[in-house]
Each structure stands twice: as structure tokens, then as C-alpha cells.
């Protein structure tokens, strides 16, 4: 996979604007959209109404811009080009080639690593919370804990989430299921001098019962849960062994009251 797209120079064409764009500081989340993709009008359906000076902006992206204009106009078109690139990007990254490029960046952890301690620096993927532009900034998705995090840098936090969309990161793991890491029930348990905090401990027990219910559902359907600890081995925190065991059979409600 990696070698296949490692080289951008298969064609003798140099993508001047796009090279500049993806190597600009703060644009690390973007991959380079292929020339072929950009020049196929079908891929751009509907975008002409989304950006001002659409044709000039597209010309700029594809390095054929040759309008003689003043700086203000140039800046307006430049801004439109960045927005247009983002909107095309959202479509491109769910294509086979786009997914592969993003996978490459994911493997290099270009999007950062999950800040959750028990995810052990698992790489993140960028995502939008909506597909409509100008609504919500980009967030980062961790497939290990299945949660959403804020980018660390304010430069990244200002990027429009629509440039990545709500589906891309989920499609990635559907297309490459082998990328889904094994899940872990390992977690933080607040303690005071070794004693669990009652309010937190009761919630954790309740959550564990939710997990046990889910595992039971999956087992019934003979679907692999993805938990390493599932089926027999219980390498959960040994102090947690009064909880619903992943290996034990189901009907464990009575034991929650035990504590």
C-alpha cells in the first residue's frame, strides 16, 4: 500500500499550488488530491455554487490560473481556492485512492495520537461533525476508544470539519477492518489512599454491566467482540474481579449490588 503511492512524480506534472497548500503550516491534515480527480468535472458536481469565483479558484488549484488582477481580487480567489480544495478533499478522501493516501498519513500519525492514557498513543483520524461547511471545526477520532478529541494546535482547531466530513473515518475502518485495534476494558479508577471513590465506583460498575450486556448480545449473534479479554481469559484489573466477568455467563445483575 505504502509503496504504491509513495511517489508523486509518476507524472512529469508539478502541482505547484497543491504542493504549496499541503505543505503550508497548519494544513498537515490534508492529502494531495490527484490531478485526474480534479479535472473530472463529475467529481465536482454542485461545488460551483459553493464558492465565489469557482472557475478561477479551480484554475488556481490546477495551476492554470492566468488572470491579471489586483491583490484584493487575487486574495479573494486564493481564499475561494482553499475552500474549494477543502470541499473537494472531503469527496476525494472517500475514494479508493484518497483513502489510501489518508491511510498512509494515519500510519505516520500525521493527525496526532489519542490523548487518552489507556489508548497508548493510538493514531487519530480527522473528522467532521457535519458535512455542511462553515458549521463546526475539525475533530479527531480514535478508533480504539471510539471517542472524539479536540486538536491540540489552535491552527488545526480552526479548520472546517466539512473538509473531512462525517463518514470518511468510519469508511476507513470499514474498508480496512484489519486496522481496527483490539479493544480493551482497561481504565482509570479514581482512588483515595487505595480506596475507590464510591460515586465513581458505582458508575464504573454500571458501565461494566453495560459492557457485559453488549458482549452477551454479540456472543449470541456469534460476532467477534474485538476484546482481547473476551472468552475465558480475564486480564482485567484484578481488583475489578467482582464485576461482570467477560468470561463468565451472563445473568449477573444480582452481583452489582454486592459492590
Amino acid at each position: 500500500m505504502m509503496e504504491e503511492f509513495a511517489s508523486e512524480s509518476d507524472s512529469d506534472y508539478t502541482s505547484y499550488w497543491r504542493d504549496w497548500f499541503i505543505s503550508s503550516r497548519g494544513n498537515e491534515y490534508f492529502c494531495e488530491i490527484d490531478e485526474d480527480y480534479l479535472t473530472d468535472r463529475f467529481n465536482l458536481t454542485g461545488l460551483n455554487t459553493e464558492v465565489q469565483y469557482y472557475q478561477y479558484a479551480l484554475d488556481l488549484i490546477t495551476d492554470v490560473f492566468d488572470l491579471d488582477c489586483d491583490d484584493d481580487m487575487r486574495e479573494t480567489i486564493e481564499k475561494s481556492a482553499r475552500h474549494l480544495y477543502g470541499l473537494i478533499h472531503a469527496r476525494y478522501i472517500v475514494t479508493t485512492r484518497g483513502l489510501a493516501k489518508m491511510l498512509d498519513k494515519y500510519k505516520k500519525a500525521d493527525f496526532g495520537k489519542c490523548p487518552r492514557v489507556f489508548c497508548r498513543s493510538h493514531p487519530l483520524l480527522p473528522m467532521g461533525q457535519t458535512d455542511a461547511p462553515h458549521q463546526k471545526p475539525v475533530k479527531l477520532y480514535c478508533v480504539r476508544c471510539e471517542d472524539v478529541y479536540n486538536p491540540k494546535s489552535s491552527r488545526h482547531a480552526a479548520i472546517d470539519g466539512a473538509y473531512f466530513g462525517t463518514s470518511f473515518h468510519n469508511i476507513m475502518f470499514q474498508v480496512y477492518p484489519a486496522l481496527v485495534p483490539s479493544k480493551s476494558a482497561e481504565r482509570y479508577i479514581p482512588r483515595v489512599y487505595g480506596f475507590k471513590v464510591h460515586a465513581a465506583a458505582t458508575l464504573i460498575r454500571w458501565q461494566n454491566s453495560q459492557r457485559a450486556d453488549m458482549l452477551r448480545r454479540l456472543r449470541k449473534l456469534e460476532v467477534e467482540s474485538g476484546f482481547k479479554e473476551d472468552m475465558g481469559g480475564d486480564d482485567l484489573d484484578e481488583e475489578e474481579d467482582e464485576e461482570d466477568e467477560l468470561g463468565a455467563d451472563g445473568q449477573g445483575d444480582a452481583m452489582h449490588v454486592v459492590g
Partner: protein
Amino acid sequence: MMSSSSGTPESWISSFCSLLGHEYFAEVSEEFIEDDFNLTGLQTQVAMYKEALEMILDVEPEEDDEDEEEDDDEEDESIEGVERMRHGERRNHSRIASDLSVIESSAEMLYGLIHQRFICSRAGIQQMSEKYELGHFGVCPRSHCEQARTLPVGLSDIPGEETVKLFCPSCLDVYVPPNSRFQTVDGAFFGRTFGALFLLTFPEYDLTKRGADVMAGARVPEDDKEMLNGMYRRNIAPSLGRARIYEPRIYGFRVSEVARSGPRMQWLRDKPNDVSELDEARRFAEENPESDDDDESMNLNGRPVRRLRQRRRNGAGGGSPMETNGAESEL
């Protein structure tokens, strides 16, 4: 020895706390350090303990020279800095450099271990609460926590095992601090107890509040003070629950649980819609009206594994979910 611009020399403690990466540290009071009881057991934890302690307290090492006494008589505020510097230089000459660096690193280790205890003391946790209000410990990176304030914690009380982490009371999880400069700070200098003790010590902080409201010291409102399991109900993991769980979707369609890449971790961010479901003691009484909460009642389902657990629990805690000041009696 560093000097501040005003001319008065900065103490070892305040210069340690002002180092880059040391933003989470409280300034341990000399009073706390001078009470031997607080240092119990630390003598064996660091090399050159006495010298390290002297360094932390800015105490001049005892010397035999007579002439030093004379200098001391003349000391006043304005020349103290100069004096200290001179003493510092002399120390450099009288001690071999390798000793000094051993003492310096011992002092940092010793300070960290004292700090772990200090921030769990009345004065220390008070100081940490001021830092919390001022936002010195940062915010939770989880999107649904919406910038909830975090607390520095250790995952171990033993130095050298883990670096400092941030505990979010809003989602009850721990995170790696965003800046790499904290990745050299030992988590044991904050310890396993501080984070949870903070919540139990300051139950009045309104954990649903953010930003400027926290800065202003927002407290749980008088009309919402219902308690549950030793905490105000509204403060129980306010950023968890149905509405704050990520639902993966592809083109608007939810990814099913049974899909290979389907959701498996939602329980981690879940919370009952009605938190009174978490009132285990009450639920137990309701579900087992006959029982008087004794040992026999725990065996009603009869599974050996449960009886085993039960027996063990009886040994430790007497068979009912005991709580003392919000802490459970199980280790």
C-alpha cells in the same frame, strides 16, 4: 542560586516551581517540610537526603570555618542575595561538582515526594484548588467534555514509573498532557490519591461549569444539592451519558454494533439517564425486600464464583457496600 529582578533571591522552591514544565506544582510551605512527621520514610528514598533537604530549604550547609559567623552578623535584606551567592560559590568550591549534581537531582526527587504528600494536606490541596480555578492544569481534550478543567495525577505513587497525567472529573478518564514538556514530569510527584481526594474535599465545585465560571469559583447551586453515593448528583461525571457518546455514521446511517468495525466502547462514556439507578444500596433493598442486607442474601443466585467473591468481600468489608466519606472500603 537565582535572583529575581527585585534583588531578593528566589527560594529554591519557587525557582523549581517556575521552571518550564513545572506549572502543575504547588509551592510546598517550609512549615510543612520542617515538620519531620511529614517526611517520615523519605530519608531512605533519596541519596544525600540531608544535603538535598538543606538545598530545598535554602539552608546553608554547616561549615567549620569561623569567619562565616562574622558575615552572618552583618546580613540584612539588601545584601542577603549577594551573601547567598557568595555562599553558593563557596559551596561549589568545597564540594566536587558531581556531588552537587547528585544533591540537585536528589533535591528534585525529595521535593516531588514531599509534594505528593503536601497536595493531600489541608494547606496543599487548598493551594491546588486555587491553581485549578486559575486554569493551571488545563482542560480535557475530549470533545464532549467541552473544556472541562482537569487535575494532575499520578498512576503510581512510586517515582520512575509513569509521567504526570490529567484526570478529568467530567468523564472520569485520564489523559496525556498536551505539551511534551510535561512528559518529563514524574507522576508520583502528584500521586494516585490527589485527583479523587480533590473531588471529595471540594464537593461544592460545580463540575458542569466551564471557563470563566470556574475562575469565579462557581459552586453547586443551593436548589440542586441532592446527594448520591457521596457526591452531588449533578457532579457525577456530567460529560457522560447517551447524548455525549459518539455514534459512528456513514452517509448518515449508523454503523451497527454487529459490524466488524461497529461500536464496542460506548459503555465507557455511558451513564444511566436517571442517575438514581446508581443508588445501589437503595436498589438492593428494593429488589430484595426480605433481606436485611446480611451475608445470606448475597448468595441468592447461588453461583459458586459469586459465593467465593462474597466470602472474600466479607473478609474485607462486611458484605455491604460500605462508604466512608465517599470512599469505598475495598482496596
